[in-house]
């Protein structure tokens, strides 16, 4: 037994409402007379230009070019970073070399002084006087 069987058997489906005579015949004419006038834009078929056709390809190419440029810039940036590191290293190495040279020169001077003092049997005081003479 369907759920609405009781109602169908008791009340049925008959429409108990009525309308004034000729209502539906008149309704359409009355409504169309009241219906506001509207202007619709004539939708002219749009002309497909060459640009329309190639636009997707151009956009795609531009996108790839952009990505390639981005990679190139990133690579340059990384390379310049490496070079800077190398330069810094070089400068650091050069600095230590200079320091080594200076130390070597100092050592040579001391060695030479010792040699002169030993060979000429000079004491410290004589050496001092000798140096003063050179400076003057």
């Amino acid at each position, binding site marked *: 037994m369907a759920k609405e069987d009781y109602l169908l058997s008791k009340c049925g489906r008959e429409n108990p409402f009525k309308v004034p005579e000729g209502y539906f015949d008149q309704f359409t004419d009355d409504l169309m007379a009241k219906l*506001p006038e509207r202007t619709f834009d004539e939708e002219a078929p749009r002309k497909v230009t060459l640009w329309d056709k190639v636009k997707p390809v151009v956009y795609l190419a531009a996108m790839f070019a952009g990505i390639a440029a981005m990679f190139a810039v990133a690579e340059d940036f990384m390379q310049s970073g490496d070079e800077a590191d190398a330069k810094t290293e070089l400068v650091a190495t050069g600095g230590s070399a200079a320091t080594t040279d200076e130390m070597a020169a100092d050592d040579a001077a001391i060695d030479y002084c010792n040699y002169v003092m030993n060979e000429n049997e000079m004491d410290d005081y004589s050496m001092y006087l000798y140096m003063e003479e050179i400076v003057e």
Partner: protein
Amino acid sequence: MKDYDEKEVLLQLQEPSTRRKAFEAIVRHYSSQLYWQIRRIVIGHDDANDLLQNTFIKAWMNIEYFRGDAKMSTWLYRIALNECLTFMSRRSQTLPLDEMAETKAEELVADQYFTGDEVQLLLQKALLTLPDKQRMVFNLRYFDEMSYDEMSQIFGTTVGALKSSYHIAVKKVEDYVKRHSK
């Protein structure tokens, strides 16, 4: 109407030059079925007439938004039932549901365009106790035997929810009729 060809009318509707003529065919074809739906909700003929006119005027003012993939009847039903809901909610702001049901029942008795017998009057009184949306679901299914799928498109609700709503409505109406039958 036998000479109504929906495909042909929808083609004419797409052309701005034949749009008004096509719309006239639509009004002629759908006015009766929409009227009865509206009338069962608002009860009075004058209110139903006003709402039917509003429905078609609204449809005409938005005709360019009608998508051909939906059925014209579904689109029109949706507009009509929304008009009814707006109308009824405006009414319910001034009267609670039970008082409104009584007022509408009195209107029915006095209405010269209501020719139902005692049992049909009882059925209408029972329907007036339902919430508006549930009453719409009941009317579409009980009187028009509309499929749940089509109702689902009109209300934007799931088939399951509609079945449940109809089942509850039938139960309420049946109880009312049983309680008030002599």
